[in-house]
């Protein structure tokens, strides 16, 4: 497992099954009373907690950066599990006290009271435990790039793309994030407010995790400025959140070092074709050209990034590489997630999943509302949303909750499916 942040739950369930088979059955009866915590999840939590304690013991002898990092990841699971077990134990003790006929009446009433409060806290703890168990997204700690492109809807889509860009910029400045407009291309026409593509770099650790909720198609319904007859149009803008990789050698985490050929996110320069847009003829001191555009093409995937914002070819190349790297990393992660979904589907039938092609949110100007289609939340303060204010945060939080719930449900469903399979054919 070494440094993989994310472990395939199937492999995990399989490894957990070996050691836990005996205890597992015994626990099943007791677990019926738990609120919503499936045995599979519990088994997973237990084994992770064991890993935590063995690693801690190991760390007491010698310092190891990788182990320390892993412990940091597991600490929350271990502590929550301890809390949960403690609460469970006190409940069972109280129950045995109540069932004991020798218990005095006074003590009994106290125990009943105590039991009520303990039972009330149990679901919350179980919920926390489930949340802690969700594997962290591999890019969660990274800063991110936000790519905005107009979709269907012509000029109007370009106009709205510009407004979305402004929305995210103000959102970043509200939160105090450092941002940097890597790329800004405007469409043809006299005015500058029709975006044809923009890439915003949000340079804050964990920005990827925060803005992950924004990936997808944003739909706008309004009477556009370009409309003469006052009809409402619907157009779409696609937003993509990509991980941004820092320059190499900045951290301990080798899995994010893009210069390392063994890394998952390494891009071989041999596979990238660089094109300079340049007129033929003499160069150097003979001419003084200002054409500095660069186009990179990743040949195996056909991904193209062009960049012309800076007057320096060097700077353009650097930015283009940053975007290309981010795009490829996201695509690889996406492919891996897709594989997971296929696996899950095989185990337990269809699972809903929102891809980047799905419509995720509608901004309706006529009704001054903003509806997120994943969480189903509607906010009736569109101006504040477009100002990147509290309302946008509310919407984003609701989506994050939705993502967590989905993840937990998927984990639980998968584990129960595994469980059934195992009951049908117990390992010899």
């Amino acid at each position: 497992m070494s440094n993989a942040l994310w472990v395939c739950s199937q492999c995990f369930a399989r490894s957990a099954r070996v050691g836990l088979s005996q205890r597992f059955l015994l626990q099943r009866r007791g677990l019926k009373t738990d609120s919503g915590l499936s045995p599979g999840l519990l088994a997973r939590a237990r084994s992770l907690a064991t890993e935590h304690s063995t690693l801690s013991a190991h760390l007491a002898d010698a310092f190891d950066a990788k182990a320390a990092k892993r412990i940091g990841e597991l600490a929350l699971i271990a502590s929550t599990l301890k809390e949960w077990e403690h609460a469970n134990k006190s409940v069972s003790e109280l129950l045995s006290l109540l069932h004991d006929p020798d218990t005095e009446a006074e003590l009994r009433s106290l125990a009943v009271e105590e039991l009520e409060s303990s039972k009330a806290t149990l679901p919350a703890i179980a919920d926390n435990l489930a949340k802690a168990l969700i594997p962290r997204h591999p890019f969660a700690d990274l800063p991110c790039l936000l790519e905005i492109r107009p979709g269907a809807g012509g000029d109007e889509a370009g106009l709205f793309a510009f407004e979305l860009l402004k929305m995210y910029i103000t959102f970043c400045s509200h939160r105090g994030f450092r941002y940097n407009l890597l790329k800004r291309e405007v469409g043809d026409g006299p005015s500058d407010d029709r975006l044809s593509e923009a890439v915003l770099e949000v340079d804050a650790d964990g920005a990827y995790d925060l803005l992950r909720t924004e990936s997808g198609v944003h739909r706008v319904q309004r009477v556009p400025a370009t409309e003469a007859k006052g009809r409402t149009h619907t157009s779409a803008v696609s937003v993509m959140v990509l991980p941004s990789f820092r320059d190499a050698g900045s951290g301990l985490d080798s899995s994010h070092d893009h210069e390392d050929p063994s890394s998952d996110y390494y891009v071989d320069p041999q596979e990238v074709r660089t094109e300079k847009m340049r007129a033929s003829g003499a160069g150097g001191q003979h001419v003084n050209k200002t054409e500095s555009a660069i186009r990179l093409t990743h040949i195996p995937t056909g991904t193209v990034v062009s960049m012309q914002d800076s007057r320096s070819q060097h700077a353009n190349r650097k930015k283009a590489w940053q975007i290309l790297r981010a795009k490829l990393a996201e695509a690889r992660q996406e492919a891996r997630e897709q594989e997971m979904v296929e696996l899950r589907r095989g185990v337990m039938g269809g699972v809903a999943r929102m891809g980047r092609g799905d419509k995720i949110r509608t901004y309706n100007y006529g009704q001054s509302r903003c509806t997120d289609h994943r969480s189903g939340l509607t906010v009736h303060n569109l101006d504040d949303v477009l100002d990147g204010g509290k309302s946008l945060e509310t919407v984003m939080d609701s989506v994050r909750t939705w993502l967590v719930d989905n993840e937990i449900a998927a984990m639980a469903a998968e584990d129960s499916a595994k469980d059934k399979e195992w009951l049908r054919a117990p390992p010899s």
Partner: protein
Amino acid sequence: MPRIPTRMILDAYRHDPLLPLLLQECRTIHSAKNELRWLKERAVTVAQSSSTKRSSTTSKHALYGWRGLLRSMCRARSRGKPLQYILGDQPFGDLDIMCKKGVLIPRPETETFTVHAASLISRDILKFERHSRSGDHAAPAPAPAPTPLRIIDLCTGTGCIPLLLHALLSPHVPEISIVGIDISTTALNLSERNLMHNVKQGSLSARAMADITFRQGNVLSGSKADPFHVENILQDLSKPSVDTPPPVNVIISNPPYISAESFADGTTTRSVRMYEPKLALVPPVNHVPLAVALDRQEDIFYYHIISLSFGLKAGLVVLECGDRLQGRRVAALCTTLAHEHSQSDSLHVSVWPSGNDESANGSGSGSAHVDAEPCIVILHRTGSN
């Protein structure tokens, strides 16, 4: 130069009335649009900063101000004034190099070559360190005293090469000393200003102020009696150790390399001819007797620089040349002069980017295209230093 089609001018006008002005110099709508964007950005920031200084002016006035400014900028550009002189600077690597009339504007090719030279230098240093370290393991002999890396840039102009080399190398090299030499006092003043400007901006570390020096000198000076002869200047700089100046590791140069013919026949563009200093472009006619007869007058700088490098025993020499033909001539000149100085056994001469290396020059649209592009000649001496 072919005429710009009327169609294109109309299209440009429809996009922005100022665009046809830029089209004269840029030739394509695409690059004209980019230039207009850069000019507009600059005009707006200049107008804003001047309006905040004079706080009495209203925002409307400031708005009018930047439009007026932009228009005059576009007019200047249509007359062929280089964009870098209008804006006053040019990004070079991660640095911001100020440009002024009378000093050659740094070219993107020079940027690429400087980055390549920096990678060559750091590779050499790493190799050297590994050698000395393995030597230490074998026998605990006294380790060689850490000598500073000494680099000389001849015909430095804006000082872009010394500054970028320092920015790229200083994180890896503890002691470094770079000397930039130019004949023009205008260039020397600007290079000093560029050094201070980039240190102030934080793109160069503070030690650059001590590590980089600029001196006036004449590469073409034949006699050692001349106080501006490069060797005399280096002697001056190393006052503490009077008897022998410390060895020079690297000589890098982007000397004037345009022949008088191609300056006049249209190969050199109007903007360059009219606005950039001829001193930095075309080598003067030199009457100093040479040890080797030169075919071409424009190679005169290379003769002097290569001879100097043999005198100084430099380990690495990097010379920018105008095109591949000149590159080949300079490479041949290197071997002839090496014979002359009887130092040919440990010498390795190469031209970069090599013609078949498509990824290095990137265009890949035929060899004729590549032949016209500038290249660098690299002299590598394995025996010395």
